[in-house]
């Protein structure tokens, strides 16, 4: 397989990363090199093999339904790029 320039631009937009034409072309060549290496996986027959999503074969632990977190928005918002009246500001959201 081989990625096209348009595919690189499509995934860059999906990933919300601005890329110039030059960057997209360079990324395409590098990604194609990497995918050529990754392609080795396809040689192996993995029929019937259970995918492994976690390093340990353990089930999820649950927490009790208790409120444990106090209001710390002033501290949290001290590192925010732009806030007003306790709200995070972003360019207008259009639905």
């Amino acid at each position, binding site marked *: 397989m081989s990625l096209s320039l348009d595919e690189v631009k499509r995934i860059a937009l999906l990933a919300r990363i601005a890329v110039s034409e030059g960057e997209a072309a360079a990324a395409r060549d590098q990604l194609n090199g990497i995918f050529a290496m990754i392609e080795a996986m396809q040689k192996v027959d993995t029929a019937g093999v259970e995918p492994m999503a976690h390093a340990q074969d353990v*089930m999820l632990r649950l927490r009790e339904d208790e409120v444990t977190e106090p209001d710390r928005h002033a501290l949290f918002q001290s590192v925010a790029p732009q806030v007003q009246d306790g709200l995070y500001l972003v360019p207008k959201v259009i639905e």
Partner: protein
Amino acid sequence: MQWETVIGLEVHAQLSTRSKIFSGASTAFGAAPNTQACAVDIALPGVLPVLNRGAVERAIRFGLAIGAKVNRTSIFARKNYFYPDLPKGYQISQYEQPIVEGGAIRIVTRGGEKTVRLTRAHLEEDAGKSLHEDFHGMSGIDLNRAGTPLLEIVSEPDMRSSEEAVAYARALHALVRWIDICDGNMQEGSLRADANVSVRPLGSDVLGTRCEIKNLNSFRFLERAIEYEVRRQIGIIEDGGRIVQETRLYDPDRDETRSMRSKEEAHDYRYFPDPDLLPLAVSEKWIDEVRAGLPELPEAKRARYEREWGLPAYDALTLTASRELASYFEDVVGAGIEPKLAANWVMGDVAAALNRSDLDIAASPVSSAALAGLLARIRDNTISGKIAKDVFDAMWAGEGGADEIIEKRGLRQITDASAIEKLVDDVLAANPKSVEEFRAGKEKAFNALVGQVMKASRGKANPAAVNELLKKKLAG
């Protein structure tokens, strides 16, 4: 051409946990912006999700209540997309292995009863809110709601009209409140529906292209949005056009649906199992415990009211509209009142009074015990059913219990035969014309005479005794 509408609903119910699904922040509604958004909710670097047992338990309750399969293992996945109200850039949801699969809900419409099948119900987290008031042309983000547990309940496309869709949504609304997993407060967004709507020629078994209408947070909007959307789709097809699969937003002010620009961009959610969350196991033991803690479900109650108490299907359905209503009714019956009498009063005077005062049954000024006290006075002939209505109104107005009001107002029924005879004689003497008409075969005249006697007794004479005595005197 005759068209058939095909509707499936995705309903998001906020689960009534104290804390969020993956964090210990409060879920209480209405707090100042971001004061209930903790480190996990705002997705600080390095924080991790830990699942709330209460959310899982509520999902199990729902699964059991609709006769679904509760999966012993389910998987949390990430649904990836960028949106300012989604702090992590992904929503933790369930994708390939949801906690609940299958099940069904019965609905009743003018067309009769019908079963709507459910596809699945899965756990996920809610997003925050974008506020669009003018912040110098920007939007403000409040993440208090981010991480509130949701159960997304997905139906099969089994509904054929907006009426059925609303009946289904109402049934779901009643059920989630019944089993105490969601407060059902639609103004606060506790229950929100997305409708998948398509049309096809009547008789066809191929599904048409569907549109998903988002943001339906009232039964009325659900109904209006579907009706508008059906008209829109039929119009397009009849004009030779084609339906484009898309997400649409219902605008209640204009009563129409419109395409959502932000969702137009081809979305590719890149679902994959969340590496921060291991598979969720639900043991047989846990399911048994949850089952044992479930209240009697509306279905079972309806059947029991009909079978054991001989109530008509309509009454049984009405009285099981909510758990509070059913328990009020059962308390009245439990105090020794015949079920049908109790049903008539609960569905009649009580419901009407609640409606007038815009109150819930739980807040009724006349308690179930007080109502039972009143109805007992009808049964033992202390008062007539008609007088009872006045007593009820006085009770509603807070004037005291039934006996107190009956005594205070001297409403005790006149059952003494000689006293009634005196009244009858006076009325007969004063109304010779009516007596004559009755004798000439006018049945109506008899009723007028009964009315006069009752009036003369200020309603307190026992109507049966009056009837009997009048008949005897007129015959004599």
